[in-house]
């Protein structure tokens, strides 16, 4: 539509050999060198994409100087194609599964395997230094290959990944001698009964960041202690819940230079080996010695009576993650009153509206807030409500990002937030009861979300919930001109809802919809958008197999996957040709992938 640079054309340009246009000047070596030297400084990938479209020599120079490669969808482009176009990549960022896979809406073996990437890169980029994977599946063998292939490997970050175990970690630890960063976040690690901490080499290490708070297996604490002691550059350490508070103490006194700390369990260990458990160590002083600490997380099994030990660091904290921390409003308040510099705060709703009021009073600099439910159910009284949201909006005017789970909400509070926090970039409200109207007026939540898209001019990410009619979507289409990511669940009345969005939001990249009454007509209405989007997810909606087939047929560069989700007692209540639960479609330069499981049909 409006876009002059068709993104697929851009991607397809490097296909095959580039023949210079007849009549153009022969390549100017000097110019190329200058170009490369200059383009090296271009770091933003959107800028680089634009630069590559200027002309052939810019395209070539940009490709030669791109050192950071971002693959937003691992199936949009093949490893072969990517490594062919960009020969000098030093760090790579790959995203696999779509986000809804986190909620068990996709079969586990759906795909997003790291193997083909690491294989290709082991040949193409022997100098590779950094790998960042999000929602990918990788095996111990993949990690072994990585460790063997890249002599200068420095940083590994795995977010929402799975498929490997401690054996794989051990490979990384032992072979990557220049390893600076090993960060595992929300990643499943199989217990292969391998002491990976002991696999780090003897002697001083260049480790700067070690994050394993999600690893659900015991670790060798002595080895960890030794590792921390011989890692003078260590700034970020995030422990798992198998590390007790006593052990934390022992680490803290060895590493007061830490800037980011995940505290582990923050409670006493279960096996009472230490007879002097009753004799409390001076945790307060240990924390006080950490003058550089700005980011605190963990507290996975917190014993609230130990919380006061963190008071000395609160004044400097910019980031606090209490989202696994089951404490009551009073316990929370006594911590938060000290945290005046806080910018990022993750909480459990056990702190109640009261706790949020305390946040509003103390954290004037807050940019990001996430409130998670301790009981993710639908039919219960929730501890946080519109009261908390309103308080936050009044106290934290600089808020940019919010994720808020609640059982009840009002349009008024949402409208208030839209007015008080005009800098909002991310607004994700999850009213857990499906189709819940405004708690006070019993009206749909249309006006609240409408106000958000209307008043928050910088909004790029939106997640809606509660009772919503097509009106809400018309607002989004009308005002949400910068929205890139939209999450919809149990909302809307008719195809018009989806049409409003597809026709109104030119920047839309990622659209994930579940259990909403949008069908084939709406799907068709968006056909002009799909090549400009990263993906569309629709599950338990009203699209039919036929409708999907039509789209697939008319758009050859769109991969249309139909997933069958079989859950225990799920009755299949649809027509004959609708034997799928999930439609997942994305643009791609490649042929149909060959690693899909049986439950996936690719049209």
């Amino acid at each position, binding site marked *: 539509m409006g876009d002059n640079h068709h993104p697929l054309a851009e991607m397809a340009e490097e296909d095959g050999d580039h023949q210079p246009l007849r009549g153009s000047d022969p390549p100017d070596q000097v110019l190329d060198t200058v170009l490369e030297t200059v383009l090296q400084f271009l770091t933003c990938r959107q800028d680089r994409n634009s630069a590559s479209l200027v002309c052939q020599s810019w395209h070539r120079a940009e490709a030669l100087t791109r050192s950071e490669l971002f693959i937003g969808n691992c199936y949009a482009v093949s490893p072969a194609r990517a490594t062919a176009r960009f020969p000098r990549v030093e760090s790579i960022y790959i995203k696999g599964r779509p986000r809804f896979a986190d*909620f068990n809406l996709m*079969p586990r073996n759906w795909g997003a395997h790291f193997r083909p990437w690491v294989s290709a890169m082991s040949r193409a980029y022997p100098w590779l230094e950094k790998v960042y994977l999000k929602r990918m599946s990788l095996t111990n063998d993949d990690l072994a290959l990585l460790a063997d292939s890249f002599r200068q490997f420095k940083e590994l970050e795995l977010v929402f990944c799975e498929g490997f175990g401690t054996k794989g970690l051990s490979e990384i630890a032992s072979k990557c001698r220049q390893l600076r960063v090993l960060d595992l976040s929300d990643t499943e690690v199989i217990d292969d009964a391998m002491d990976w901490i002991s696999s780090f080499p003897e002697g001083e290490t260049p480790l700067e960041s070690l994050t394993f708070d999600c690893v659900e297996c015991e670790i060798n604490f002595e080895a960890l202690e030794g590792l921390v002691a011989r890692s003078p550059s260590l700034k970020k350490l995030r422990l798992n819940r198998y590390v007790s508070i006593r052990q934390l103490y022992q680490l803290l006194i060895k590493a007061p230079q830490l800037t980011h700390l995940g505290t582990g369990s923050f409670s006493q260990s279960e096996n009472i080996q230490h007879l002097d458990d009753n004799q409390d160590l001076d945790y307060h002083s240990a924390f006080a010695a950490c003058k550089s600490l700005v980011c605190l997380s963990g507290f*996975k*099994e917190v014993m609230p009576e130990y919380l006061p030990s963190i008071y000395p660091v609160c004044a400097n904290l910019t980031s606090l993650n209490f989202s696994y921390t089951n404490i009551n409003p009073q316990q929370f308040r006594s911590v938060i009153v000290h945290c005046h510099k806080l910018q990022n705060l993750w909480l459990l709703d056990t702190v109640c509206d009261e706790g949020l009021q305390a946040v509003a009073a103390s954290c004037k600099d807050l940019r990001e807030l996430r409130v998670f439910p301790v*009981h993710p159910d639908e039919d219960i009284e929730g501890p946080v409500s519109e009261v908390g949201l309103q308080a936050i909006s009044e106290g934290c005017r600089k808020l940019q990002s919010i994720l808020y789970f609640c059982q009840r909400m009002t349009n008024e509070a949402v409208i208030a937030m839209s007015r008080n926090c005009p800098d909002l970039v991310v607004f994700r409200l999850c009213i*857990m009861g499906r189709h819940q109207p405004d708690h006070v007026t019993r009206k749909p939540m249309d006006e609240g979300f409408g106000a958000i898209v209307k008043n928050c001019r910088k909004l790029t990410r939106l997640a809606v919930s509660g009772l919503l009619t097509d009106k809400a979507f018309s607002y989004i289409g009308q005002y949400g001109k910068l929205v890139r990511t939209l999450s919809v*669940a149990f909302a809307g009345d008719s195809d018009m809802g989806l049409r409003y969005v597809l026709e109104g939001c030119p920047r839309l990249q990622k659209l994930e919809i579940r259990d909403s009454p949008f069908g084939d007509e709406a799907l068709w209405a968006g056909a002009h958008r799909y090549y400009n989007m990263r993906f569309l997810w629709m599950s338990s909606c009203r699209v039919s197999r036929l409708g999907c087939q039509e789209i697939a047929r008319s758009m050859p560069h769109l991969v249309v996957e139909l997933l069958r*989700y079989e859950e225990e*007692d799920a009755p299949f*209540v649809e027509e004959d040709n609708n034997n799928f639960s999930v439609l997942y479609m994305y643009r791609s330069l490649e042929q149909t992938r060959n690693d899909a499981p049986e439950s996936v049909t690719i049209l």
Partner: protein
Amino acid sequence: MEVSRKMVNLLGGGGGGGGVGDLNLKETELCLGLPGGGSSEVAETLRATGKRGFSETVDLKLNLQTEESAPLDLKEVPVKNGPKEKNLLSAADSAKDPAKPPAKAQVVGWPPVRSYRKNMMAQKSSKDESPIDQKLSTASAAAFVKVSMDGAPYLRKVDLKMYNSYDQLSDALGKMFSSFTMGNYGAQGMIDFMNESKLMDLLNSSEYVPTYEDKDGDWMLVGDVPWEMFVESCKRLRIMKGSEAIGLAPRAMEKCKSRS
């Protein structure tokens, strides 16, 4: 129940009224049956010393369960309310009637909280005691193990600490994998474990048999050891075809034979 009583008789009728010493002895004895979880519930006493048929663990109850007990898979925190139905598809219909959402129906992946977080919270709600109690309560850390079923497209995880007996675990597994199994285990659904030929029939059939990997890395048939011992030593579960489990059964048969 028939089998357990039979077993009890074979043993000379220890029964639920047996003395404390009796109970302990049987508790730790290696046998084929399921001594029960050592639970003090009255309902369990009959089973506490009796042994039940192997198939009770095997019998993954496949029929649609409308539920009495709390949901046992990991997506939900145990909820006290009434019957739940898994309902993927009719949510769109309920949009027509905003005043009455299907309050009791549970839906996959809703609310959108990741399993890891739900699991961590589930542990916490059982730990809502004072810090002193927390200290005193025995290792209440969860014991999550992966559960795979041959032929199923994805694995699950269970927290063994959430169950008190093989029975409960068997129920949970049955619910989790019911759409993948086929199966009936014969008319009564019970197999006399002492009867080698019947056991062999089961193991030769295409029915499913739960096995587990223990701390030593060996693959064992579920049901041999007392429940607590099982929870301590089980590292992962695999529900495999009976015919594949056949290599594991003789070990169990040996133990049983040597006893009687």
